[in-house]
């Protein structure tokens, strides 16, 4: 008897777990929506009522419900079918949806499994970041000065994507301008207080390779991830005078970025925020990408 009760309890727990899975899957489906033609109004999935098995629903817009158009399935026709014994129904939309009596919705892709697909993207970004250069004085003293840069980064990327994750690499070129100005951030000698070193619109160019990994935890068109570009860049810093030097003229550095992407059709808005070379050197990038 005890074993039987235990068995029933385990079954109950398993069924609870199964229901939880169903709920999770429903959250992950942005397209499986339906509206009732006879009521002439849209219904969000959570309020969808059951339809008789075999009912065919046209997915046209009802008059006066234009605002709810995002809730409509994109397909031109939806078919409700199911097992009469189970009294459950399915909707074929962009995916397959199970509408049960207790408002739980299950979705599955029409494909048997989520395959890995490859993507190629061309991205154009505007970027700004901060770094420092070191001025070496004839007397051996050094001083670090703030430098800020702004420029453009055209980039080609290649990636492998599943339904929830994407990883890939990119190759790009950077062109921009830099400015530096009298800010003796880490002056080590009182003799340097009056030192005047200022320049702007300095040309800077370089290239980078990057690795990135993105997650799409909820919606297929919203991604968040990390990106690590390895950049080489060259600038000709003007020398304050004879026997002075400014370094680095060439720089090879890593950046550590968080990246957010929002996709609409083939266009993706990309923003990256993080640090160039080290904590505190903030890098921000805003770009648009075309997938082909």
């Amino acid at each position: 008897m005890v074993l039987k009760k235990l068995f029933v309890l385990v079954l109950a727990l398993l069924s609870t777990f199964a229901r939880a899975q169903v709920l999770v899957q429903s959250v992950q489906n942005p397209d499986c929506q339906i509206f009732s033609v006879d009521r002439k109004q849209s219904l969000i999935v959570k309020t969808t009522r059951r339809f008789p098995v075999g009912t065919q629903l046209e997915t046209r817009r009802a008059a006066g419900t234009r605002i709810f158009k995002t809730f409509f399935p994109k397909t031109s026709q939806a078919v409700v079918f199911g097992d009469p014994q189970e009294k459950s129904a399915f909707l074929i939309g962009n995916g397959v949806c199970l509408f049960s009596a207790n408002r739980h919705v299950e979705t599955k892709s029409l494909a048997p499994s989520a395959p890995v697909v490859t993507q190629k993207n061309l991205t154009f970004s505007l970027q700004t970041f901060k770094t420092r250069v070191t001025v070496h004085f004839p007397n051996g003293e050094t001083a670090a000065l703030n430098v800020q840069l702004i420029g453009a980064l055209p980039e080609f990327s290649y990636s492998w994507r599943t339904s929830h994750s994407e990883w890939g690499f990119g190759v790009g070129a950077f062109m921009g301008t830099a400015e530096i100005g009298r800010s003796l951030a880490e002056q080590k000698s009182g003799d340097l207080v009056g030192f005047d070193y200022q320049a702007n619109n300095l040309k800077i160019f370089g290239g980078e390779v990057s690795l990135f990994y993105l997650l799409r935890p909820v919606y297929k068109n919203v991604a968040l991830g990390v990106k690590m570009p390895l950049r080489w860049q060259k600038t000709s810093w003007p020398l304050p005078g004879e026997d002075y030097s400014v370094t680095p003229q060439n720089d090879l550095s890593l950046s550590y970025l968080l990246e957010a992407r929002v996709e609409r059709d083939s266009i993706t808005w990309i923003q990256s925020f993080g640090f160039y070379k080290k904590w505190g050197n903030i890098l921000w990038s805003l770009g648009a990408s075309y997938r082909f």
Partner: protein
Amino acid sequence: MAASAAIAVFSSPRIGAYPTFIGYGYTSCQVCHFNSFGNGPLTDYGRAVGASTIAATGPLAGIDGDEGLALASGFLGRKELPVWLRPAVAVRGLYLVSGLEGDAPRKRFIPMQIDASLTIQSPNRKHWASMTLGYLPDRETGIKANSSKERQPLISREHYLSTELREGTRLMLGMMDIPFGIRIPDHTAYSRSQTQLAMNDQAHLAIVHQYGESYELGLSAIAGNLFQDADLRQSGAALFAEYDLLEKVRIGHSNLYTRNKYRSRLMNAVHARVGAGEGSSVLVEVGSVAQKTQIPTTNLRSYLLFENMIRFARGFHVMIVGEYATQDTFRSAPRSLRLGPAIQWFPMNRVEIRSDFQVTRVFNAPTVEEDVMDFLLQAHLWF
């Protein structure tokens, strides 16, 4: 009200919200707010859609789900008020830590908004009078108003009459915000500070609001702020227009000309709001402000706003905001770039928590300084 709110959510033909909520398919402000161009008290529909779609379900979801949340979104919860009476209260506080880049960051609490509204509407909900009173606490103490005679602790944020002349045409008359650009709630944004259309810059005006299936127009005749001295009032006209380019893609432009005895302003802006997926969106606005003063020079300011809202779960959004502004577009003047990530969280209906990390970088200044870093934490409650 509860029943009407629920009916509104699931059957109303027009809906609206924060401009970023175009990602949810809500393109227009006018059904969620009594003010056709946004801001101010929410309509029944706005309350219900906020509770049942925007905010997380929270601990009070109960067994009725979203329908129950919508039904309980009224001023007194499920208790219905007469249809003609719509009160509202909004409170917003800010904890600001500024100067994070230095050794001694400054921490402050700023009561940003303490507003009470009353809207009286006709039974058919086509005509109403609305008034919002704002309490201005002393900035230093944050508690009681300044005793200065010139300072008024209570101000009218807006008071106006709104009437539907015919379907698709509405007339608003009174003191309110001037429709211009994207009306984002961040009053310190460059798009609002450069245009001087921030939280205390309302004016007396008449607006004709014309709207159709895929467009909105707002034509404003501006008398200026009549509480100011006559020679200070900025009077003139403004035009605001938005069009649906594609599904969940709106583009628009704004033009404004005002002048007083001492200066004139001509402002132009174009903007776009793009929704992507469910709840995510991108806003872009580019604008210019040409200002002429008695000194024979013209100053042309310009600004850019880029705001990206990403919905990760119901009620939880990550935002990335980038802004650019210059005090003089065609002369050598400092250019400011402000950017940073933010979190906008509606843990339950009537509660908004927003956290911003802002970095301000100034280009073309005499010296290249450290970036200025601020942390902002806002709590916004409404009833």
